[in-house]
């Protein structure tokens, strides 16, 4: 059974007429990476909240349809600062916050925290006070905190928003490593150029519904490019008036030129 399955999910936020999600169905297998793309307000963040069992439980609102979770999930929200626990005065304690709340024994916590710090390349920050960190550093600390809880489903909402290009590349590498370990990963991102190399599948959300779902080639199709959701290379190719099908990546473009 898949770690995460949504079937026919419709979700309304409290006191809101229009649904935030309409008839969304998505099944994510272990080791699979699904990218959610769409304009702002299309429902990607809401979908992640539903997948994380935070909507409607914490957000309020009503949900119809089925959500099946076989395993524990962890979600990293887009604004890093508000996710700091407020209860930790060092980065180490901040990353250990989740595992400690789960009541794990001390040694296991230490093992998971050290591993998470290494993976996010922030071991050097372990003794720093989280409030003194930069936005990118905080984002990595939060992600480390979620990974330290060893979730089977990892949900990421704009994980590279605060990172510089090198940091973003490192993060996408990490995402592939996590999938390789069998975790199911759903990531909402506007970093479209990174998607072909990272994601196994792409879901295009529009006004709360899944408009299209398929391989990353989706981002080189006419419809997505017209909506402004194509990769840069595809967009440039199209804007130059060159013939479809548009290339997805730089490598594809070079191939076409030859």
């Amino acid at each position: 059974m898949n770690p995460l399955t949504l079937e026919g999910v419709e979700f309304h936020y409290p006191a809101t007429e229009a649904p935030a999600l309409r008839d969304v169905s998505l099944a994510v297998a272990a080791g699979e990476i699904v990218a959610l793309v769409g304009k702002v307000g299309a429902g990607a963040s809401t979908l992640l909240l539903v997948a994380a069992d935070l909507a409607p439980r914490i957000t309020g609102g009503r949900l119809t349809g089925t959500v099946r979770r076989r395993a524990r999930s962890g979600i990293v929200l887009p604004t890093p600062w508000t996710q700091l626990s407020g209860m930790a005065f060092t980065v180490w304690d901040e990353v250990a916050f989740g595992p400690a709340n789960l009541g794990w024994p001390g040694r296991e916590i230490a093992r998971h925290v050290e591993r998470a710090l290494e993976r996010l390349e922030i071991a050097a920050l372990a003794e720093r006070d989280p409030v003194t960190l930069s936005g990118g550093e905080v984002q990595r600390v939060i992600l480390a905190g979620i990974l330290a809880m060893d979730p089977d489903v990892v949900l990421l909402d704009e994980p590279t928003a605060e990172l510089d290009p090198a940091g973003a590349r490192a993060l996408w590498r990490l995402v592939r490593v996590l999938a390789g370990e069998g975790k199911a990963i759903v990531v909402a991102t506007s970093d479209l150029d990174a998607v072909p190399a990272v994601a196994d599948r792409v879901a295009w959300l529009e006004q709360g519904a899944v408009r299209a779902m398929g391989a990353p080639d989706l981002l080189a199709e006419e419809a997505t490019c017209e909506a402004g959701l194509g990769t840069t290379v595809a967009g440039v190719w199209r804007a130059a008036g060159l013939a479809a099908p548009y290339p997805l990546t730089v490598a594809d473009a070079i191939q076409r030129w030859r």
Partner: protein
Amino acid sequence: MPVRLLALIPVAVAISLALSAAVEAVALPLFLDTTGTILATALAGPSVGVAVGVLTSAVNTLRNPTFWPFVVIQIIVALYAGLAARAGLFRGLRTAVPAGLGLGVIASLTSTPISYFLFGCTTTGGIALTTALGRALGLPPLGACFFGSFVSDFGDKAVTFALVTSVLHALPRRTAARFPLALRAIGAA
């Protein structure tokens, strides 16, 4: 306690203490240190309000230790605000401001004995000054002390109630609907 209320408490305390920057900028003799308490009560009920009030006093005590006994006032404020919210008194300034004035009277009546018997009315420079003024006007010591705290409390609580009313009405419906009692406080439930 649901996690949202747990997240509300520290934020409400921080609000109460952060507003002093705003008050200084407009040079008005207000404290607004019960704003978080009243807002939290209107959104989530008096027990949350009491928690916010106690914590606000505790943090205030770190700066001026003589504030600690006045935690009683914060608790009374939370209870009063709870009744006001239940009666929907935050539905407009016309009902909120008189409610605030009423609280101002109660607050100064309660804080006077504490200030007088424990600290001889010297908790802050302002109170001491107005007490001296009251004495100069011929008031008895306890009366002068009441005069000192009344002058600041009266306006302070009315402005706080007005501010909380504005905030409650400015909240987007989606956010307000997430707090159990917010809609009742503004008379919209």
